[in-house]
């Protein structure tokens, strides 16, 4: 495509057991990911050498300890994947990062592939556990008791783009995109104002506008600036404000629209005139208005609905991208974005097979009406949680999909393929192919390196500093022509 985007997402899964007495989330998460088969018999380290999560986008380095697990811990915590992604344990949750992708459709496919990998690990793990110890995983973001776990998006941007401009241009966008990207939630969290049902899982948890923190006093704009690439050339925009979506379409539109907005900012097309008077209050107010008709106040005194704010961004996108060479990926995003906003404005119910918060709301209200139940009935909270259950037979999202109440957006075949094969158009291709072809010789990997141990005394590091290199077009031949890892390293250095 003509427009270069570089995107990846990270998903932390909620974890519990049938019987919670004695349940330990850390050891259970490790138990799950170490049941990756047949691949977990192979041991590949995660290379922490280039990791620097304490660099702040505002231009300073925060004090703190870097993560440096021992070798055995490292093996146990990390499963670099054949698809170029990473399966790991972060704190008390199993987590999956997609490989680097260049478009939102690939993000959907690789995110769902990760969900499938996670589900297979869970099934393998549960085969050898007693009934009451069986583990359950949820792709959601809250336990409904004030604890949240994240879904993070990462977009590569140019170092030259001013962070202040990103904040100014993106805050109103990030506050309002929940109208199509929210996953829906029964009740409230974190001592926020009461609500029976709200649009976003995460809105209640945001307490500040800008900060490096992700675990407490969460900011709408996160400043982690760890590009996993040449920092002189690139910066990373790390978005923590979003919900994890079950819906393929919602994931696509969330990431697609965000990528277009950021691409404009990255090319000097700043979006002004939409700054919110109170973003922290607005994010919670928008989440509580299921009619989408209530307005939020802008700094300039005007009152806009969240749909109007999103439409203003879409209009900017049409103006900007119409002047460039026509890119079908971009036009597909704008077309779905426009169609979705029109429906959200006229009749949001029309999207009740495509957008998570509307699918879930339809399910819960139909059920409550039929059974004569109220919002405070625990069965509705159970359905909310079980909507995110990743088991195909028990998860309500998958139950609804089988009966035609959820519209798929990508094909199942593509998801299967993406489970064990890297995308071709980023450095994830090189990383994934090395693991696939030479699993015994790959000593360690990271986002920006692959390290080989081919039996002699030194470890050879292949740097992957540019995320847009290492592609099939650039290195595919090396994999076709190299029979051994030694051949590959020799050909690469030739």
């Amino acid at each position, binding site marked *: 495509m003509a427009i270069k985007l570089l995107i990846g997402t990270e998903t932390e899964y909620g974890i519990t057991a049938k019987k*919670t007495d004695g349940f330990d*989330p850390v050891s259970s998460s490790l138990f799950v990911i170490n049941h990756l088969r047949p691949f977990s018999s192979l041991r590949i380290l995660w290379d922490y050498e280039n990791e620097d999560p304490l660099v702040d986008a505002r231009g300073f380095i925060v004090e703190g300890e870097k993560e440096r697990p021992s070798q055995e811990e490292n093996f146990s915590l990390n499963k670099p994947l054949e698809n170029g992604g990473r399966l790991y344990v*972060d704190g008390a*949750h199993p987590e999956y990062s997609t490989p680097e992708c260049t478009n939102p459709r690939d993000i959907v496919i690789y995110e769902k592939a990760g969900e499938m990998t996670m589900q297979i690990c869970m099934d393998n793990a549960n085969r050898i556990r007693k009934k009451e110890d069986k583990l359950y995983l949820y792709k959601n973001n809250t*336990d*409904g008791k004030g604890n949240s776990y994240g879904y993070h998006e990462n977009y590569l941007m140019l170092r030259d783009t001013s962070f202040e401009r990103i904040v100014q241009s993106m805050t109103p966008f990030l506050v309002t995109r929940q109208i199509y990207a929210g996953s829906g939630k029964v009740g409230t969290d974190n001592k926020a104002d009461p609500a029976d049902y709200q649009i976003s899982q995460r809105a209640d948890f945001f307490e500040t506008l800008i900060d490096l923190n992700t675990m407490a006093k969460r900011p709408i704009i996160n400043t982690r600036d760890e590009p996993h690439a040449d920092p002189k050339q690139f910066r990373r925009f790390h978005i923590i404000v979003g919900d994890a979506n079950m819906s393929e379409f919602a994931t696509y539109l969330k990431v697609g629209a965000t990528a277009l907005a950021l691409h404009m900012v990255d090319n000097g097309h700043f979006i002004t005139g939409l700054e919110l008077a109170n973003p922290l209050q607005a994010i919670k107010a928008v989440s509580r208005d299921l009619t989408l008709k209530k307005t939020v106040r802008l700094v300039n005194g005007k009152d806009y609905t969240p749909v109007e704010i999103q439409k203003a961004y879409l209009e900017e996108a049409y103006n900007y991208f119409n002047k460039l060479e026509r890119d079908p990926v971009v036009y597909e995003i704008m077309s779905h974005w426009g169609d979705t906003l029109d429906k959200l404005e006229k009749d949001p119910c029309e999207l009740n097979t495509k957008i998570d918060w509307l699918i879930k709301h339809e399910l819960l209200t*139909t059920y409550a009406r039929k059974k004569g139940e109220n919002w405070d009935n625990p069965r509705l909270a*159970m359905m909310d949680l*079980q909507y995110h259950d990743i088991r195909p037979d028990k998860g309500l999202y998958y*139950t609804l999909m089988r009966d035609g109440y959820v519209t798929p957006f990508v094909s199942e075949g593509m998801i299967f393929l993406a489970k064990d094969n890297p995308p071709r158009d980023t450095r994830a291709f090189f990383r994934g192919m090395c693991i696939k072809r030479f699993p015994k010789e790959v000593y360690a990997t990271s986002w920006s390196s692959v390290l080989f141990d081919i039996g002699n005394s030194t470890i050879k590091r292949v740097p992957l500093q540019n995320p847009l290199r290492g592609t099939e077009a650039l290195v595919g031949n090396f994999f076709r022509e190299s029979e051994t890892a030694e051949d590959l390293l020799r050909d690469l250095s030739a």
Partner: protein
Amino acid sequence: MSSQERERKRTKEKTEKTEEAKPAVVEKGKKIKEDIDDLLDKIDDVLEENAEEFVKNYVQKGGE
């Protein structure tokens, strides 16, 4: 005008096409209702037993 006469008058005003469509519409409405009943039964089947207990015990460590 009796309700029967009203009904006859309304029927006369309708085109042949809608006359034909009518049973299908009724059929479709019935089908959707049955589908939803089926779906809700299915959900009762897959929903974790003892929802109250399960939801109460679902406590996570904050992550990220």
